[in-house]
């Protein structure tokens, strides 16, 4: 490969990765701000229902992704990669910005959650079209034998997007007072998106079409009906199914366990202070992200299959131990309380609700706050617990999250190259996008809702290690995927179309 072409591919990588990263950023700020969004856009008399409604909206954002993959994948295989993923970028950026502009439920009533839902669906559609386009575009520019390495840059974008979303939220929270953030500050991360999308659009506008697609177009060998050729043709359909059940399904659950479930587990099961969780997750993601490139590069040398399968196997075998360690790290029943520092404060609000706040400090520096609200008019109470952990525990959690991110990089680093090599140019965008987004969007995206259900169910049944039950979903899905991947996927990839 000449020097000029190396420079050229870096330009391709930068422009593609930046746009994809922004799309992930847009997609994740909604999830990261789920709790505050639930109080703004959904009826607030039942916080659990409001939170689950947001989760449902979150799920809607995931469930619609495969439809985006079909719609934009088809376009990408007919009119080209470049214009299609420029359209997805604008759709995503516009939707994100508008979510930040919607008045709250208190102001416009039912219209507020309805608009949020519609915009969230548009975000899901856009994301469904973006990733396949970017991965295909980069892979079609990359030299033979280096596709794993070059496409792994695209693979970093999801994690970097999540990292930046956490950092922007953290920065906004630090700059503003808690009251300002709650009133209007949560909208800032949504508004920031439009600036990033504008810059990325201008960069992408000046890029050339993929050379492989341009050649196919010139020769008249592009598909006229990519959907029919992808899924109506038995030969291709069997590879779509293999990609889904032998790779992306397991990859999706490992990805969401390592990043989203870990975050939700620390916040809602371990009750660790929200800002501390965002911070420690950010550090773990930062340390883990370069490994996407390492495993992408390695997959060019030893094959994609064994790296992805090893990541899945390690995740299956170690998840329960990791989460047990994480839970015990902050379990205050193992710590020694400094009794003289314990305080109890009771106050009555103007609605006659009684708020009892108990604060405890432990010898290792951990502080525990329990706020119980007895509602005067409902004969029920609500308890919120927040644990502020010490630096040592924080690093212990960073380590355990990092290990999970490492599994993510093993299964996710090589997967773009694996998918694009599986399908021919004329239907590549459509064929690779669908299994990716079903695996990630549906099997992975539904993980928080399903795992939370398992935990709640186990807790209601009085199970001692209830907090580990949420892991059965990713463990079972990844196990089935591991067996299928090991038996059916050929490491030499004899169907390599690139």
């Amino acid at each position: 490969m000449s020097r000029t072409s190396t420079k050229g591919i870096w330009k391709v990588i930068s422009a593609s990765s930046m746009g994809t990263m922004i799309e992930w950023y847009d997609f994740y700020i909604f999830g990261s701000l789920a709790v505050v969004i639930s109080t703004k856009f959904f009826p607030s008399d039942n916080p659990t229902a409001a939170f689950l409604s947001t989760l449902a909206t979150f799920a809607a954002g995931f469930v619609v992704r495969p439809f985006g993959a079909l719609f934009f994948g088809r376009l990408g295989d007919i009119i080209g990669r470049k214009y299609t993923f420029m359209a997805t970028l604008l759709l995503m950026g516009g939707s994100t910005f508008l979510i930040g502009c919607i008045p709250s439920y208190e102001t416009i009533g039912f219209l507020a959650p309805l608009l949020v839902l519609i915009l969230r669906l548009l975000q899901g559609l856009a994301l469904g079209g973006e990733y396949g386009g970017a991965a295909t575009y980069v892979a079609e520019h990359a030299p033979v034998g280096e596709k794993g390495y070059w496409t792994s840059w695209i693979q970093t974008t999801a994690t970097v997007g999540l990292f930046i979303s956490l950092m922007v939220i953290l920065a906004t929270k630090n700059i503003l007072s808690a009251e300002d953030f709650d009133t209007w500050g949560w909208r800032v991360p949504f508004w920031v998106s439009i600036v990033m999308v504008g810059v990325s659009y201008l960069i992408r506008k000046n890029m050339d079409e993929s050379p492989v697609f341009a050649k196919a177009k010139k020769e008249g060998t592009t598909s006229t009906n990519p959907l029919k050729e992808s899924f109506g043709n038995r030969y291709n359909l069997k590879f779509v199914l293999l990609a889904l059940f032998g790779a992306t399904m397991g990859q999706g659950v490992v990805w969401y366990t390592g990043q989203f479930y870990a975050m939700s587990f620390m916040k809602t099961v371990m009750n660790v202070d929200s800002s501390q969780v965002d911070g420690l997750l950010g550090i773990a993601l930062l340390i883990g992200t370069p490994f996407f490139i390492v495993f992408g590069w390695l997959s060019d040398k030893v094959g994609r299959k064994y790296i992805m399968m090893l990541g899945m196997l390690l995740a299956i075998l170690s998840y329960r131990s990791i989460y047990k360690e994480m839970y015990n790290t902050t379990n205050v029943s193992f710590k020694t309380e400094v009794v003289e520092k314990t305080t109890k404060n009771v106050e009555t609000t103007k609605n006659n609700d009684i708020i009892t706040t108990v604060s405890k400090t432990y010898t290792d520096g951990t502080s525990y706050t329990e706020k119980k609200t007895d509602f005067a008019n409902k004969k029920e109470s609500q308890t919120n617990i927040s644990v502020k952990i010490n630096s040592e525990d924080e690093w212990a959690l960073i380590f355990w999250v990092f290990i999970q991110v490492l599994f993510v990089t093993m299964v996710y680093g090589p997967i773009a190259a694996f998918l694009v090599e599986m399908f021919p140019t004329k239907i590549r965008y459509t064929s690779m996008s669908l299994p990716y987004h079903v695996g990630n969007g549906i099997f992975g995206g539904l993980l928080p809702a399903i795992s939370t259900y398992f935990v709640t169910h186990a807790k209601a049944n009085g199970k001692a290690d209830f907090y580990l039950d949420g892991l059965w979903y990713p463990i079972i899905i990844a196990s089935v995927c591991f067996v299928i991947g090991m038996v059916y996927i050929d490491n030499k990839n004899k169907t390599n179309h690139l």
Partner: protein
Amino acid sequence: MNAIKRILGVLWVILSIAAAYFCVFEFGLPKFLSDKQDDLVFGIIILFILTPLIVLGLGTFGYFSMIGEYDQKK
């Protein structure tokens, strides 16, 4: 290896049927018929999204495996 692939194909078909039973009767339907909003959302997700995907997708994959579509051609 081809024989293992075909035998496992039967397992995937059985697994898809078992998953269908579990998803519909143990999980989805009781939740779907529940009065609670959170249960309803969960029921809809299980019944109308996850179940068809697992049943049709994994079932078809199993069928293709059984009839030798994934056999290694010499």
